């Protein structure tokens, strides 16, 4: 009886194993789907961080789009030029110059520069504060509650003195911050060089109204557009035409930035914003307490 039970148990398992193996083996051949082998290669060449900076859900989707739908290979903001070249080799296409996309925060007002601020006791998020009137006078500028900071997967944007500031050394240009900003003051801009000139304000109000709410905002005075036609002033706000922006126009751009009465034309990019601490910095490895300086040697008089 016991032997038969054990035998039957073992037999059942072996029979099921054989049966399922057979069925699955047959199904594998019968339901075989042809997949382009290049998809696997493209996935291997992509960084695999699934940031969505290319506009697709993840690296896998982008790889399928490259192979099956002939999507351009230079859309990966994380991999940059080297990744685009590797993908070009796999797909057999020539890679045009891939311009890196980086965010620019179009607001330059720190907390001290903002006027007309009221006490805000709601949720400390830009998305909710944006629904409330009079959190600050300026209805265009950075709110400084750091939705972008929380959204960033690369620790590349931080709120410093109430202003979102990009760390261009860490940024990969995935665009998460620009998507989350409720006031749409972060734009993803093509950086043709490491540093580019940008208009650091988003306020469309007339100059008189801007001076009431901000110490630094753009007045729409057209000083820049008189010097260079790259600047277009519409709705009291200067914008820079990046399609025409080239290195050989640099003299007029610099001249325009010097003429701006509110210093709103600033260079952004590597070395601006948050400057990362590098290993070369002359700092001691371990900071030890200096007891000499803490000894109180004040002489009491009187």
């Amino acid at each position, binding site marked *: 009886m016991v032997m*038969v*039970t054990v035998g039957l148990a073992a037999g*059942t*398992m072996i029979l*099921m194993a054989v049966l*399922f193996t057979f*069925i699955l083996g047959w199904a594998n051949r019968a339901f075989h789907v042809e997949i382009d082998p290049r998809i696997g290669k493209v996935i291997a060449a992509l960084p695999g961080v699934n940031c969505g900076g290319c506009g697709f859900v993840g690296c896998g989707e982008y790889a399928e789009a490259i192979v099956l739908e002939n999507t351009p290979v230079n859309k990966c903001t994380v991999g940059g030029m080297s990744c685009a070249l590797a993908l070009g080799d796999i797909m057999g296409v020539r890679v045009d110059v891939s311009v890196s996309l980086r965010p620019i925060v179009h607001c330059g007002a720190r907390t001290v520069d903002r006027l007309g601020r009221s006490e805000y006791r709601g949720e400390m*998020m830009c998305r909710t504060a944006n629904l409330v009137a009079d959190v600050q006078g300026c209805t265009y500028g950075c709110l400084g509650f750091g939705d972008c900071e929380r959204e960033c997967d690369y620790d590349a944007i931080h709120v410093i003195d109430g202003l979102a500031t990009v760390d261009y050394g860490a940024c990969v240009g995935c665009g998460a911050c620009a998507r989350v900003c409720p006031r749409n003051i972060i734009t993803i801009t093509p950086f043709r060089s490491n540093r580019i000139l940008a208009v650091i304000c988003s306020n469309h109000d007339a100059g008189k109204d801007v001076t009431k709410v901000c110490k630094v905002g753009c007045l729409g005075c057209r000083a820049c557009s008189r010097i260079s036609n790259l600047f277009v002033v519409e709705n009291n706000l200067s914008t820079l035409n990046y399609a025409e922006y080239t290195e050989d126009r640099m003299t007029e751009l610099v001249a325009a930035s010097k003429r701006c009465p509110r210093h709103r034309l600033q260079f952004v990019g590597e070395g601006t914003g948050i400057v990362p601490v590098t290993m070369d910095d002359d700092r001691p490895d371990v900071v030890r307490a200096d007891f000499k300086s803490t000894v109180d040697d004040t002489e009491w008089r009187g």
Partner: protein
Amino acid sequence: MTYITDIFLIAISAALINNFVLYYFVGICPFIGVSRNVDIAFGMGFAVTFVMTIAGSISWAITTLVLVPGAPFTRFIAGFFLDPGQAVQIDLTTLSYIVYIFAIASSVQFVEMYIRKFFPSLYKSFGVFLPLITTNCAILFACLTIMSHVAGVENPADVWGLSKALALSFFGGVGFTIAIVIMAGIREELDFCDVPECLQGAAITLIVAGILAMAFMGFTGVDSGLRVALTGG
């Protein structure tokens, strides 16, 4: 009439009263893990319903044909070695867990290959969920519940047929979908709430799940009332 009433009550019970997630607390990992977004939660619930129905019917067949004492297949094989009186006593229900997991994993594999070939859009929307629910405990729980109504039942009239097993597994999946979609809806709103720092993340999610389970306790006793109402006493 009573048969249809039974099936109706099994369905109501599996979907609402004894909801797998909120009454028995099985299938918590996907309930917490993929309930961030209503659309994704709905996809997960749909996939679980799909697999649970298939796995439930397969495991009902295996239990009835092989595992229970006196099952046709077992009795037939044992008949070669033992006399008929002993052959009907052979009980293979100890194998249930391993056999069910085996059957679930294989059927999920098979279903995945099948829909990949013939329904590519469905395959795309299931995505990663289909292989992920291979080891979902809610599905094993459905199989074991079905087994408890097939094996070791004293009155032969109470043994479940395939239709009852199907009702339990399909509506168990529906109950899972209801629970996970409600949870996802709450969690989407939770993103805009000022949660104390010590409760952020998994902690507040589990607290919400507990409150949700208490709300579902309100269904307790509905089944007996329904039975009285439907059968008239």
